């Protein structure tokens, strides 16, 4: 069973890590875009 366990662990682990990485990237980019949008709005106001 150890090969089976290793196969499941590797595949599911990689997919989980990649999924988490995608969510982190999207969150970071959304925050950056919101910050830039707020700065643009301030510039326009001045």
């Amino acid at each position, binding site marked *: *069973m150890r*090969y*089976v366990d*290793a*196969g*499941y662990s*590797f*595949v*599911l682990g*990689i*997919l989980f890590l*990649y*999924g988490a990485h*995608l*969510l982190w*990237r*999207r969150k970071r*980019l*959304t925050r*950056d*875009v919101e910050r*830039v*949008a707020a700065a*643009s*709005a301030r*510039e*326009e106001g001045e």
Partner: protein
Amino acid sequence: MSAPGSIVVPAVSERARRLERAIGIAALLGIVATVCLGLWVTPADQVQGDLVRLVYLHPGVAWVALYLAFGLAAVSSLLYLWPRTRSLFWDRLAAAAVEVGVVFNACTLISGSIWGRPTWGVWWAWDARLTSTAVLLVLFLGYLALRRVPAEPEVRAKRSAFVALFAAVDVPIVHFSVLWWRTLHQGATVLNPDLSPTIHGSMAWTLLLGFVSLTLVFVWMLLVRYRIGVLEDALAGRELDAALRERRAEGDPDGADTPADDQRTLAPLDQREGERVAVEAGSAVLREGAR
């Protein structure tokens, strides 16, 4: 028309958010059910014993990588190159599909290698199926590397589309490799030439559940990755504009002696008519600075 330097990102509707969440939850539940059925409910095989349990994962990840991800990338690239359907939407979709596909392709090779060690006695063999799958991974890694080369969005999209179509030629080679050459790898279990599955009962249902679950995982990852592409493009355009304005201010603080040609070139920048204009303007400013 938006103001200078403003950032335009299409909003995501609440309905789309709910759909994405539902797909994510369904994918997670499907994977949990597949693991439970695959590891503890389905019987061991007469020949392979417990090793057969890898069948509930390995063909599923291969199906997603080869047919869904790289197939979608090829179709999207073709639609981008077709003048009547040309849109950066297809380019972003292809990029998202390739990135997710590369992860699934790597999973295919790793799980196949782990299965091959106790079955064939080796971690790797230069077998037609294995080698063509590895070549596919390298080709699409090249696609992702090419996308990181700085270029105008249209130029990047066009050359990426050509590369994706070129790489996708390997997909049918991988599929038919077990028929065209004598390989260590077994033939197709479900999609064989007779369309007569060689797996039955609870094993067949668990295999099917694995395919559906991994497909849902792919769709969820594709949606998230596509949104990342939209956000990255928006930020890149904004940063380019900011850099150009900064360079313009450095080169001409009073705005008194700017050549008329550059004024004409830079005027549309303020109107945010596209990144192409911004890049042209940047080149003009740099040329002027070099003089």
